[in-house]
């Protein structure tokens, strides 16, 4: 079996190979090398000082909390935390105050990790290193590029904000896997408390190294680095476009040129930024203003011990409670939205955890902001009411929406029974439902006989008739259960 067949994303005879470089801003109180506040969206050039402006004579002092966050990320990605040093990456750009970036080069803090996608695939992590962010340039006029701009504005609030860059092996086999990787990585970053993972605010930035090769080949093709994707959707689109472009080149006998390419969201294409020959020589050398970073074994162990449960582990718990697959979309959604404590709560009262997962992944996920205020007990009672057939599916959904709205706004009833009563949803007592079922069976003897002989699809007919007979109050799941019981007991 070829790698392409495994991945299932080979385009014809070609296999897509993707490696990702993800920059993640750390949510420390202060910047990486000075005491300025690390905050997004403030008045430009207000969180600045001699150090993050790189004024003559200023010196960097490493933020210990940033190191701790970096170690959390490394540990969560199963990396080894090793002694490391900082290097200077030298290049000129107006938003970089010192005209060099303090980064880590050949000796990064975290090495050799892995990330497991919800579907089970393992993606190798080369490294996760610490570096400082640049300021933010706004080029006015000239199509937004610096050389054509009428003038440029620079906001140095972001200069010196701590970043961790996470570099994957080229283990991803297409746009969908790349997106799944970023989603899972984002969930891990958020779970560790190191980052807020907001792609739209730029606190999570993804560059993709994309190449193609004949399906079954073990050699890597010539890669292009794609930049400027600011959403998961554009990441997927950019990879798909780039793969098609490279296949078209190779199939027409032209070489792929190793270069950096810029994704243009508007025209849906990648455009050449600079070739390998034009690439900067960054003249890396050890940052003499900082001392080597050698976290003690005790510190590394303490960070690992304090790490909260990670998404994979939490999905495992939800799966165990609900009987669903750990990689099921609903389970992934529940964990990524931090809704799994509700599953735990339902399981804790021996409720129907599978039903809880369905409600959470659908109705609750759609109003996730309101869900922050949802009382787990109220949610448990609602699931129990639905599970016992006291509410039909439709009724339960309605009650849940009311419950979410009331929880989010702080107005209205937050007791599901009270909401149901207020909506006129009378609880269907089990014996009343049983009677309705028996009536429908009696009215359709031929169909019942066929159902009893194993024609399962006829269950729908009975459920429909029971619902009609009860003006929609009957819960289909409860009716189905009753039908099965009646059949097993011989009708």
């Amino acid at each position: 079996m070829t790698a392409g067949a495994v991945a299932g994303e080979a385009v014809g005879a070609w296999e897509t190979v993707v490696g990702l470089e993800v920059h993640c801003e750390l949510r420390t109180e202060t910047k990486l090398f000075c005491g300025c506040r690390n905050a997004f969206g403030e008045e430009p050039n207000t969180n600045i000082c001699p150090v993050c402006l790189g004024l003559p004579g200023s010196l960097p002092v490493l933020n210990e909390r940033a190191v701790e966050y970096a170690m959390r990320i490394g540990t969560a990605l199963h990396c080894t935390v090793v002694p490391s040093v900082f290097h200077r990456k030298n290049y000129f750009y107006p938003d970089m105050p010192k005209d060099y970036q303090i980064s880590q080069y050949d000796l990064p803090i975290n090495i050799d990790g892995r990330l497991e996608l919800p579907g089970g695939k393992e993606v190798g992590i080369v490294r996760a290193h610490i570096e400082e962010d640049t300021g933010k340039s706004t080029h006015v006029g000239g199509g937004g590029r610096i050389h054509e701009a009428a003038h440029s504005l620079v906001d140095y609030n972001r200069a010196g904000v701590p970043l961790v860059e996470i570099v994957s092996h080229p283990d991803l086999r297409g746009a969908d896997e790349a997106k799944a990787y970023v989603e899972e990585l984002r969930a891990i970053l958020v779970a560790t408390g190191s980052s807020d993972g907001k792609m739209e605010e730029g606190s999570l930035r993804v560059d993709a190294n994309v190449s193609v090769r004949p399906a079954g080949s073990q050699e890597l093709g010539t890669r292009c680095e794609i930049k400027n994707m600011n959403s998961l959707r554009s990441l997927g689109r950019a990879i798909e476009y780039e793969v098609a472009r490279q296949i078209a080149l190779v199939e027409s006998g032209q070489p792929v040129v190793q270069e950096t390419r810029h994704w243009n969201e508007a025209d849906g294409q990648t455009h050449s930024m600079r070739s390998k020959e034009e690439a900067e020589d960054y003249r890396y050398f050890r940052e003499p203003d900082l001392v080597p970073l050698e976290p003690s074994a005790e510190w590394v162990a303490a960070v690992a011990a304090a790490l909260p449960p990670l998404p994979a582990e939490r999905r495992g718990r939800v799966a165990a409670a609900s009987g669903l697959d750990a990689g099921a979309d609903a389970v992934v959604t529940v964990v990524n939205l931090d809704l799994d404590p509700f599953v735990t709560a339902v399981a804790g009262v021996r409720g129907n955890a599978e039903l809880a997962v369905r409600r959470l992944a659908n109705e609750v996920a759609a109003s996730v902001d309101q869900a922050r205020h949802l009382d787990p007990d109220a949610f448990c009672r609602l699931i129990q009411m639905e599970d016992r057939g006291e509410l039909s599916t439709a009724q339960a959904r309605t009650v849940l929406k009311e419950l979410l709205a009331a929880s989010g706004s702080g107005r209205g009833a937050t007791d599901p029974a009270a909401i149901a009563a207020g909506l006129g949803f009378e609880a269907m007592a089990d014996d009343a439902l049983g009677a309705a079922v028996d009536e429908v069976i009696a009215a359709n003897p031929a169909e019942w006989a066929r159902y009893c002989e194993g024609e399962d699809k006829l269950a729908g007919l009975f459920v429909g008739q029971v619902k009609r007979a009860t003006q929609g109050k009957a819960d289909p799941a409860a009716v189905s259960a009753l039908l099965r019981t009646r059949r097993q007991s011989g009708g």
Partner: protein
Amino acid sequence: MTGPGGAIAADVRAGRRTARDVLEDHLGRIEGREAEIHAFNRVLADEARSAAGEVDRAVAAGQDPGPLAGVPVALKDNLCTRGIPTTCSSRILDGWLPPYDATVVSQLRRAGAVIVGKTNLDEFAMGSSTENSAFGPTRNPHDLSRVPGGSSGGSAASVAAGFSALALGSDTGGSIRQPAALCGVVGVKPTYGLVSRYGLVAFASSLDQIGPFATTVADAALLLDAISGHDAMDSTSLPGEVPSAAAGLDQGVEGLSIGLISELMNADGMEPDVLARCRQAADALTAAGAKVDEVSVPAVAFGVTAYYLIAPAEASSNLARYDGVRYGLRVPGTDITAMYGATRSAGFGAEVKRRIMLGTYALSAGYYDAYYGKAQRVRTLIVRDFEAAYERFDVLLAPTTPSTAFEIGAKTGDPLAMYLSDVCTIPSNLAGHPAMTVPFGGGDDGLPIGVQVLAPALGETVMFRVAATLERAALGQAGPDRPGETAP
């Protein structure tokens, strides 16, 4: 032996003299000779009068202004002073006002010192003669046709001319010790990390150290002890206990083992009169009870070569920020790249450009290992060879410079000859070890000669023991007058 700085502080603290009075004496000397010497980029007469007034008010109010009460101190103009131009003697910093004081400047203010001015230097501290200044050369107070050495030539000249009792400089490859020797004063490069570099405009970060100039060893100890110690703003600042320089002053050298570094005694261009003074110094130490022997420290022979790769490499990065975007000089260009080029072409002098290019080349892909990488390995060898020597010797001795002060213009056309004037001082920077120069008589031309005492890391106390002993011995030597002492 109390120096003039220590005497001033004692008098001012005791109320015997006012800081204003002391200051006016020094301003008077500046008035008299600054026009011909050009030690300063800027004399801070008003600020100094105000600071001296505060010291006097504190004394009058019964408070102790500190160990440097009322002592006039000059600052090399690469030390940041809040709201006061800090030029590095470069056009590129035109108009820039630092929004903060260097740590050493804050320490001086807290100790009661009176800052009299910002002294001239080779641009960004790159040079050995103070001729590479955008504002013109400084002249040696002993002979106006000669250079004062460099790069801290203005600070050396200020102390030698009596413009200030003390001065601070920075020493990356000898920039304190070489001008101190050529101007006949004491100059100290402390252990790397002993004095905070925060606010020192960087030349080569792994080599730069701030240190004192003084007319006596005791005054140098007074100033060094006032600025030593850990600073949280400098990650390379050493934690832990700080060696006391003053503690060594009266201990003598009885029982110490002192090694004369063969490779530096025999260095290229070493003048016989300088060598003779160094040997006399060794004899004086023997007479004072030390055991002196020659010692080989082989790797120091490669010091200049390694230094001129490492220092320019770091400088090429440290000086990248002077790009016309945020502060200092900006020469307009048609686009950002043109603006960078025009600004840096106009803003930097020839020597700075030479070193930026050298350093950029040394760090380039494909050349890194052959140049920068190899230079770093040489540096490791130098440390190793020094450590081997310090297993047998408490301190080492060497000339500070190969010759006395040379004529202005003599070496400006020959950068290599200029670089070689630091052959004796560079090894200590590469090793991160302390070293200091003490005036020890004069040369055949009547100009001052310095002898250098080198010590292991944090060996300041023993270094000052030897320096103080040499100073006492030097009083018996025929030497040049101190120009400052002939004034009022």
